[in-house]
């Protein structure tokens, strides 16, 4: 770009026509575009996922598909910034897998309208909402009203940390893949069978390993881990957020501290994308560990697969349990 400018400028000076170098600059930009954006898609199916957990599932069930995830573990899926790649990825998609239940209400409708892809419009076969037809937890998410800090009228959408629900979503994804790509139907079904057999063994193993955690209490920020806690029978004693979606306030943290002082929880739990300061403050005051956990699969490391994610979550909670000080 620098070279182009210098050359163009020299030419422009010779002719005393200021518009010449603008023209060259535009040509240079156009060249950059032609070079960069023209990669042909070779995969059979284009899959767009709103959250990385669905991308991980899709990768297990359709390894040959081209998969694009709109968010990653360090982003808050409630609220993302518009990037051009989101629009072009959804425009190309044969199948879009999102959580639904209002989680993406702040951005998915606009993205769908800008992408203008009839295959993934609401109601079309190419849009799969993971929370459809699943029983959702009705916690604070459900009860607060919209002005009082309500994000999801439909119930708690953060289902990805209950492996039993993930198995049901996996089955629906395999069905949908088979419907959209009938030629590969048999292979999607057989991959699902293998996946489910392995997954169910793991669930049993995880449940065995997590037995010591039974009945423990935790304080968490937002209800993003509620399904994990329900599955492992932990008890979320309090939420760092005074109202779902509203960041922790000083007076709310004080109240939590007063309440939890006599019976401190196992840990204070936060997601990777949340501000660690309020949680650290409370954890320090209560002398319990602050666990910053991925609430979904990450881009790299041991938690980049769903299997590794649950291994990591349970291992971290167990470590906190083992290090817990004896009650005073």
């Amino acid at each position: 770009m620098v070279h182009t400018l210098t050359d163009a400028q020299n030419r422009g000076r010779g002719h005393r026509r200021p518009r010449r170098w603008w023209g060259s600059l535009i040509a240079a930009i156009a060249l950059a575009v032609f070079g960069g954006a023209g990669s042909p898609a070779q995969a059979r199916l284009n899959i767009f996922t709103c959250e990385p957990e669905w991308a991980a599932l899709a990768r297990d069930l359709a390894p040959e598909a081209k998969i694009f995830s709109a968010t990653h573990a360090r982003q808050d899926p409630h609220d993302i910034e518009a990037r051009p790649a989101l629009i072009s990825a959804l425009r190309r998609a044969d199948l879009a897998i999102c959580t639904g239940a209002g989680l993406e209400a702040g951005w998915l409708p606009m993205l769908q309208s800008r992408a203008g892809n009839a295959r993934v419009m609401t109601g079309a076969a190419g849009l799969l909402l993971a929370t459809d037809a699943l029983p959702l937890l009705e916690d604070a998410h459900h009860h607060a009203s919209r002005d009082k800090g309500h994000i999801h009228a439909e119930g708690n959408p953060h289902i990805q940390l209950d492996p039993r629900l993930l198995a049901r979503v996996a089955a629906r994804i395999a069905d949908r893949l088979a419907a959209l790509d009938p030629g590969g139907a048999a292979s999607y079904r057989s991959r699902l069978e293998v996946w489910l057999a392995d997954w169910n063994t793991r669930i049993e193993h995880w449940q065995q390993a997590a037995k010591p955690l039974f009945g423990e209490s935790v304080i968490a920020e937002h209800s993003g881990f509620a399904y994990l806690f329900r599955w492992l029978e932990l008890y979320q004693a309090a939420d760092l957020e005074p109202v779902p979606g509203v960041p922790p306030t000083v007076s709310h943290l004080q109240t939590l501290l007063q309440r939890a002082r006599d019976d401190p929880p196992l840990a204070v739990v936060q997601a990777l994308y949340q501000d660690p300061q309020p949680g650290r403050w409370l954890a320090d005051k209560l002398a319990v560990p602050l666990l910053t956990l991925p609430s979904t699969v990450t881009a790299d490391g041991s938690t980049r697969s769903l299997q590794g994610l649950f291994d990591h979550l349970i291992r971290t909670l167990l470590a906190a349990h083992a290090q817990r000080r004896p009650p005073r």
Partner: protein
Amino acid sequence: MMEGVVELGSVLAAPFTAGLLVLVSHVPLGEQVLRRGIVFIDLAIAQIAALGVLLTAGWGNGPFSGWWMSTAAALAGAGLVAWLARAWPEQREALIGLVYVGGAAAAILWVSADPHGAQKLRALLAGDILWVGADSLWLLAVGTALFTALGFRHPAALNRDIVFYPAFAILVSLSVPVLGLYLVFTALIAPALGVHRLRQAGHPRARSAAYAIGVIGLLMGLTGSYLLDTPSGPAIVLALIATAAVSSALAAVRLRG
């Protein structure tokens, strides 16, 4: 290759149009801002317009539901700034700075209990130019058309305070909900500043060069955000600043040589 170009064009056409629409009015307004030496004023008035948008956010749907309220807020803000500028000309920039920070602080307080507050604040600052659809542009288009017609009929009208401040407040308050405060401020200042030397030297094409800076910055920012997969608003801001800086340097070389 063709596929990539078509793809890029279809994704970026709408935000490009929105950016062009804002440039049409903001380049001449920016010249006025620089001529009057009231650079901070745009930030202050845009911030007050943004506050107006936030205050009326619950009153309806769509980006312009609260447009009359934000326009009223911006007009009041412009009136306040104009009055401050006359009453205390010496401390004008300092007072305008305080109006800006005061407006920003009030906005943060207003959304602090709102679960989507951080989102709304960020959208007003950084803007979501990519989500722009035709339905959110028509009001801005009408305002721009009126402004352009005025410019053709009475080219010197903008020199008068009574025309400049209201026109400025209305156009800025219409642009902020669409493009965000940062981009609106940059669209106003960067092209005008990039051709500052040309204009001082009395170059007849200073205005065209300012538009060229705007269009190139917009194109580069949008294309860059597409290729690098980053949010578009901030990318355009940086591209506009870079284009203005390069143009200013080129102009200096040309004028000397």
